[in-house]
C-alpha cells in the first residue's frame, strides 16, 4: 500500500509519540519497584518497559487509601451535582423560554453574568459563606453550591427555544398543566442537550481539585483528585511507585470510557468551550 501523504503522517506520528511516550513512561513507573525506579537513569526502551513488572505499588496503595471509598465518594458527589443541576437548570431554562414575568430579562442577564466569575476566585468568599452554614469539611459543601449554573440555564434555554411552541399549546388544550408540559414535553425533547450538559458537569466534578482540597480536611471524605495529592505525600519516603499506581487507577477508567463514548465526550467538551 502506498502512503498518500508521507509528510502528514510523519507529523501525525510525531505528535502521537509526544502524547503517548510520557503516558507509557508513567504507566511503566507504576509497575516498577521503588528500587528499580531509583536505579533508572539511562535512556533506552527500558525507560518505557519495566525490567520486572510488579503489582506491589498497587497493593501498597490499596492499603494506604481506601480507594473503593474514594471512588464511591467521588461518584456520589459528581452524580449528585450533575443530576441536581440538570433538574434545577432545566426548570429555570423552561421558565425563561416559555413564560413572561416581571424581572425576567434582568434575572437572565444576572444568571449569564455569573458565568464569568471563575470558581478559583469565588472560593475565597465562598469559604466564609460555607463556614457560616457550618458546612466546612462536609460533602454537602462540594454539592450544594454547585447545583445550579448560569451556563447550564443559558444552554438549555437556547435548546428549549428551538422546540415548537405549538407542542406546549396542544398539550394545554388537552388540559395539561405547566408542570405537566415541563415533565412530559420539554424534558423528553431536551434529552440530547441534557446528555451533553450532563457529561460536561460530570467531568468537571470528577476532575475537581481546588474546591475539595480547600473545603475538605477529613481523609474519609477525600475525592479522587485529592487522594492522588494525598498519595504524593509518600514522596517524602521516596515512595514514587505508590503515587503512580494511584494515577494509573485514576486515569484508566476515564480513558476507557472516553474511547467508547468518544462522540459524546468530544461534543460535550467542545460545547463546554462555549461557556468560556
Amino acid at each position: 500500500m502506498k502512503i498518500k501523504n508521507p509528510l502528514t503522517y510523519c507529523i501525525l506520528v510525531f505528535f502521537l509519540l509526544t502524547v503517548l511516550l510520557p503516558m507509557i513512561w508513567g504507566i511503566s513507573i507504576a509497575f516498577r519497584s521503588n528500587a528499580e525506579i531509583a536505579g533508572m537513569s539511562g535512556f533506552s526502551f527500558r525507560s518505557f518497559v519495566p525490567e520486572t513488572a510488579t503489582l506491589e505499588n498497587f497493593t501498597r496503595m490499596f492499603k494506604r487509601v481506601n480507594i473503593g471509598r474514594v471512588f464511591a465518594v467521588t461518584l456520589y458527589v459528581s452524580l449528585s451535582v450533575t443530576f441536581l443541576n440538570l433538574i434545577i437548570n432545566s426548570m429555570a431554562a423552561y421558565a425563561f423560554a416559555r413564560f413572561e414575568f416581571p424581572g425576567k430579562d434582568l434575572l437572565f442577564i444576572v444568571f449569564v453574568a455569573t458565568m464569568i466569575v471563575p470558581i478559583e476566585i469565588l472560593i475565597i468568599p465562598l469559604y466564609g459563606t460555607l463556614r457560616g452554614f457550618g458546612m466546612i469539611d462536609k460533602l454537602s459543601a462540594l454539592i450544594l453550591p454547585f447545583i445550579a449554573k448560569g451556563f447550564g440555564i443559558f444552554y438549555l434555554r437556547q435548546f428549549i427555544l428551538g422546540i415548537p411552541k405549538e407542542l406546549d399549546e396542544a398539550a394545554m388544550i388537552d388540559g395539561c398543566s405547566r408542570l405537566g408540559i415541563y415533565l412530559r414535553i420539554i424534558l423528553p425533547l431536551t434529552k440530547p442537550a441534557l446528555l451533553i450538559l450532563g457529561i460536561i458537569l460530570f467531568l468537571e466534578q470528577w476532575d475537581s481539585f481546588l474546591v475539595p482540597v480547600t473545603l475538605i480536611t477529613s481523609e474519609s471524605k477525600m475525592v479522587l483528585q485529592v487522594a492522588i495529592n494525598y498519595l504524593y505525600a509518600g514522596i517524602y519516603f521516596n515512595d514514587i511507585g505508590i503515587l503512580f499506581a494511584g494515577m494509573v487507577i485514576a486515569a484508566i477508567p476515564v480513558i476507557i470510557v472516553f474511547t467508547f463514548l468518544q462522540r459524546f465526550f468530544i461534543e460535550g467538551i467542545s460545547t463546554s468551550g462555549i461557556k468560556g
Partner: protein
Amino acid sequence: MLTKNTGSRIAGYGHRDIITAYLFILPAVLIIGIFVIFPSIKLLANSFQSVSIMGGAGGFVGLENFKAVFKSHDVANSFQATLKFMVTVVIVQTSLALFLALQVNKSVSGIGFFKTVYFFPVVVSFVVISFLWRFAYSRDFGPINAFLDFVGLARQGFLSDPDQALWCVIATSIWKSWAFFMIIFLIGLKEIPKELYESAAIDGATRFQEFIYITFPMLKRTTLFIVVITTMDSVVKVFVPVFTMTGGGPRGKTNVLIHYIWQQAFRLGDVSFASAVAVVMFIFIFIMGIIQFKLGGKKE
C-alpha cells in the same frame, strides 16, 4: 373548543402563570444567589475591609488593600509570571492547535485513531497530568533528562531551575490542552464551504494561497473565540499545575496570580489582601476580553 383554547392562552400569561414561573426559577435563584452572587459581592466588600480567614472582621479601610497590592513586589512578580504564561500559551497553543487541525482535516486513513489518542491528555485530570510531568522532568530518573544525556547534552534542572520552571509548567499545560482547541478548529474548518476551495482550484491557487485567502479568514471567528477562552484559562486554570508541580517555586518564579491569591487567603489567612488581588485580576481578565473582542471585530 377553539374559543376555549384562545381563552386559556390569554389566561396563560396571567397571575397564576407568573407565580408558576417564579416557582420554576426559585431553586436556581436561591442557589446562585446564596453561593455565587452573595459571595461575589462579599469579595468586593472584603477588598475594602480588613478581614482574616477566620472571619475576624476589621473595619472599612478604603483603598488601603489596593495600595498594598500595587506596592507589593510579590504581586508584581506573580503578575509577570501570569503574563508570560498567558502570552506564551495563547500564541504557541493556538498555533499548534491550528496546525494540527489542518493536518487532521486531511482525509488520510486512520485519522480517527490519531484523534482519539491526541485527546487522552484532555480527558485525564490535570492533577494526574501534572504529577506525571513533575516526575518526567526529574533530574535523575526522568526520561527527558535521560534522553538529553543519551544524545550527549547536559542534564537540566527543569522544575528546580528558577529560569526554566515556568516554561516547564507552560509546556505541560499546552501538552494537556492543545487537542481540545484542535477539535474546536476542526469544527470551524468543517463549516467552510467546499465550493470556495473548488473555485480556488479552478483559478489555480496554491495550497499556501488557499490557506491565506480562504482558510484563515474563514477561521477568524473561531480563532477569536479560542484566543478569548485561552486567555482566561491561562490566567485562572493554572492553579492545579502550579499547586502540584512547583507550589509556586523555585523562588516564586512560577507563583502565578491565581496560586498566589489562594496562598494569601488559605495559607496566610489574609482574606482582604487576597480579595483585592482577585478583584484586580478579574478586572484585568475582563479588560483583556474586551480588547480582544474589539480587535477581532475591527478586522472583519
